């Protein structure tokens, strides 16, 4: 199976390259794989995730996502790549002035789908995350767990090639966390979406086979 993400001798840094966070990391992730990235706070987990959607460019080495070389990609190509990704954040990053339904269909709106298609998909996606009755509410009217389900629904809206999740259950209770893990497992299993999750701790209820990378001392190592 082909690689969706491929990193070779990747170095990531802040402060114009002065502060290195990840150094000389090499790994490949294939289509349909579920991957956990763990590591202590400040180790560079989120930085690695940001580099995968082009928020941070590699200082050295190669990083290819969906066939696009992120070190040299133009901004327009990067934008196009992001439309094939579903991104989930610990703080949800929902637009609070939009309804839940409008938040969910943001990727479809960006892709230029008609309002009718957007409405149909909003209903389907919200039903999938069991929030159909909240379609017309605003994010701040929902609990944290419900907001994150909206975030997951948004990430799934356009059947993405890859889902990137940054501490998706970091702010949630156990029940809400389990719901989120279920949704992501389903996406990986049923849609063959590659899922890459940055987390402090791998959930105990997880049932799918997965790969586990750990970040330590600026290096990215696979745990077997």
């Amino acid at each position, binding site marked *: 199976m082909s690689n969706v993400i491929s990193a070779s001798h990747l170095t990531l840094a802040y402060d114009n390259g002065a502060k290195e966070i990840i150094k000389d990391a090499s790994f490949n992730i294939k289509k349909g794989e579920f991957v956990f990235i763990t590591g202590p706070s400040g180790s560079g987990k989120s930085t690695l995730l*940001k580099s995968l*959607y082009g*928020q941070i460019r590699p200082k050295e080495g190669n990083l290819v996502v969906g066939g696009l070389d992120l070190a040299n990609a133009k901004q*327009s190509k*990067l*934008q*196009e*790549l*992001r*439309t094939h*990704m579903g*991104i989930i954040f610990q703080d949800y*990053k*929902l*637009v*609070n*002035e*939009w309804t839940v339904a409008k938040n969910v269909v*943001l*990727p479809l*709106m*960006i892709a230029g789908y008609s309002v009718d298609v957007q409405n149909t998909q909003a209903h389907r996606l919200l039903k999938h995350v069991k929030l159909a009755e909240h379609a017309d509410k605003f994010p701040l009217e929902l609990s944290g767990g419900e907001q994150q389900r909206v975030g997951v629904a*948004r990430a799934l809206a356009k059947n993405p090639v890859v889902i990137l999740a940054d501490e998706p259950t970091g702010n949630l209770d156990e029940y809400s966390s389990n719901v989120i893990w279920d949704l992501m497992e389903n996406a990986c299993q049923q849609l063959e979406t590659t899922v890459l999750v940055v987390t402090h701790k791998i959930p105990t209820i997880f049932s799918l086979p997965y790969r586990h990378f750990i970040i330590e001392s600026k290096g990215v190592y696979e745990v077997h």
Partner: protein
Amino acid sequence: MKFIKNHLMFILPLMAILLGLEFYLVFDRTTDSYEKGLKEGYTMLVVTKKPMELAAFQALNAHISSSEKIKRKNIVSEIAKGVSAGSRKEILAALPYFYNVGLDSYMHTSRLEKIKNDLEADKNIKKVETFGSSYSSAYRLFSFIKFTLKLFIGFMAVVSLFLIIKQMEIWKYAHKERMQVMEIFGAPLMLRSGVLFKVATADAFIATLLTSAIFLYIKFQWAANSGIDIMMQKQEELFRLGDMGILLGSALLIVIIAVYSVVYSSKGVQE
């Protein structure tokens, strides 16, 4: 209430700039015709030994645009009342030639002096009278009014621009979250800034219409009924349809600059 306040915070400074711009346009037009009147009303007196043609004057200084010979017979009839016809002929023969010389523009007194010197350098010219003191006071007053108004308009524009920048910061804060989320999911610049453009463009239209309405009121109500001669004479200059295009164009230009400054400063994902 907050919605109206947000719009007014942009519309009012924009209107102040547009009002300043329209005042400038109106002032420029009215002073243009006033300046033309001053120029046309002004002539210098040139006394020559022999008759001179316009081309001869223009050869001495290019700013000379007209010359009108003053009939010497009229002068003689004024100064030689009760004198015999023979003596009148002698006086007429001895009298130099007088010309009212007009200029091509309304200029500073220093340039008048230069013209005077150029003319007096010619041996055929006996005397040049520029009437400099009355000319100078009119010119200075006119220049002072023009400068003061431009200064005021400039000051108003700067203050208004600061208010618009302030409003941009509020917009930036209000729209940043949405624009950043859209950027993460790959929305192009135009889509990210679409809402802001719609709001700002609507505000630009409103500001243009309100400014135009104020000047239309001044033109058709206030000026027409003011009883002030100059206002009634210059009524046509007060507002022209083309001004509306200039105002709208300027408002849209300000909007484009303002919106792009917000969009570009909101780039990048919030940590």
